[in-house]
């Protein structure tokens, strides 16, 4: 079998039965000659079979690794997500989630309800961490809670779309359901330093005390261009993140509109804005609780 040799002078390789006296290419003597040992078990790493087998094995190994990691960690991750969601609800209520035991405070202060047929019923199922499809199906969650300032409040989950991905948030409204007590917004993948700033406290705190409905009973709470907020129902946006901010504005409007029946107090249509009607319904809901 022919062996492979390399000449260190000219760098060429050639095949020969045994060590030659001189390089057949440049004529250097034997001392410059070296036998090239084939690597490993002598597999040709450029052959089609090797390439296909390598790719398949690699993909299978990586797939198993990822599947293993994902399933091994799923429980801890889900617990984290649930805990974080509770923290977000508490943030909307004015608590600082970094300094409290989230699970404990949540179970003490917050009650998960469903809004069915004009009244709130205690929700018995597992804690939800996403509300998008639920709201669409008419399954309206309302959290009754007390804020950090010991006020009675209702928390409403809202979902929307930003520039790059989903947005979500929680809006705490006061007992008479006409003013915002606090908000929490976050995002999947908005631009860091721009759109992502909707997750910061200064932005969310601007909503505190803002009215929800206008004279005509429609949602008027809106986010405008940074620095342009004039009227009582307007909130300053974020510089350089117009599309994200528009997303927040739409999310707040759509979210609150979806809960209009609850917020306006029962059977009253959102458009009615009839004070007498609202009062009666509010009393009713109070009694039911």
């Amino acid at each position: 079998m022919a062996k492979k040799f390399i000449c260190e002078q000219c760098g060429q390789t050639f095949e020969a039965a045994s060590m030659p006296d001189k390089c057949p290419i440049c004529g250097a003597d034997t001392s410059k000659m070296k036998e090239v040992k084939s690597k490993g078990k002598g597999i040709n790493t450029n052959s089609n079979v090797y390439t296909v087998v390598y790719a398949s094995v690699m993909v299978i190994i990586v797939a198993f690794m990822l599947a293993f990691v994902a399933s091994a960690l799923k429980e801890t991750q889900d617990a984290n997500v649930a805990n974080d969601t509770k923290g977000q609800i508490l943030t909307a209520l004015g608590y600082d989630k970094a300094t409290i035991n989230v699970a404990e405070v949540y179970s003490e202060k917050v009650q998960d309800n469903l809004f069915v047929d004009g009244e709130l019923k205690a929700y018995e199922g597992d804690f939800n961490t996403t509300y998008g499809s639920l709201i669409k199906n008419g399954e309206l969650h309302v959290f009754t809670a007390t804020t950090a300032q010991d006020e009675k409040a209702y928390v409403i989950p809202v979902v929307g779309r930003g520039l790059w991905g989903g947005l979500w948030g929680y809006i705490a409204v006061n007992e008479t359901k006409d003013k915002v007590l606090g908000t929490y917004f976050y995002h999947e993948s908005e631009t860091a330093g721009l759109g992502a700033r909707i997750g910061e406290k200064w932005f969310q705190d601007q909503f505190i005390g803002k009215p929800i409905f206008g004279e005509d009973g429609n949602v008027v709470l809106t986010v405008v261009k940074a620095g342009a907020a004039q009227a009582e129902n307007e909130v300053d946006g974020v510089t350089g993140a117009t599309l994200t901010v528009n997303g927040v504005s739409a999310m707040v409007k759509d979210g609150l509109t979806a809960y209009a029946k609850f917020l306006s107090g029962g059977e009253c249509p959102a458009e009615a804005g009839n004070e007498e009607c609202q009062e009666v319904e509010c009393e009713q809901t109070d009694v039911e609780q």
Partner: protein
Amino acid sequence: MSKLFSNENKAAFTNPLSMDNPVTVQVLGICSALAVTSQLKPAIVMGLSVTVITAFSNVIISLLRKTIPNRIRIIVQLVVVAALVTIVSQLLKAYVYDVSVQLSVYVGLIITNCILMGRLEAFAMQNGPWPSFLDGIGNGLGYAAILVIVGFVRELLGFGTLLGYNVIPQFLYDAGYKNNGMMVMPAMSLIIVGCVIWAHRSINKEKK
């Protein structure tokens, strides 16, 4: 020990910091330099994440380099990087949830960062694990340094803050100073990177 820090290894680490900087000389990773530098904190986080991931994917590819079929080497590199980033982000999500929320935006940006692919292809495929590791750290830090410079300028002039703290005193605002909204726009980061490249090249011209 002396072999571990031979001149060649030292060069693998120090060259990308300045003379062969991935951003200013090789002009790689510009897209992420644009995306995350409007404030200092995300710039630092991104720089460190890229450093860690580049170093470890360099090591893995360097260990595999003799077995990788030449024709699908880019795919193999990509799979290694993507798997590594995904596993790390899963672990963070399970054990340090807050950090993972902070990093969520960057995961996609890290995988597609051209510096990673560039170093894997140009260095790790030809060199052993230890020099590859140093090369990864060096390139990551070289990239981070530019990000931090750009982030520093943009946050200071765009928001008047550094790492979220106000640094421009109130009396300057009272005297009519205004934050420069242009700095917040992505285009401005390219202009700043351009200025950094300019400064870097004119300094290094004298050295050469």
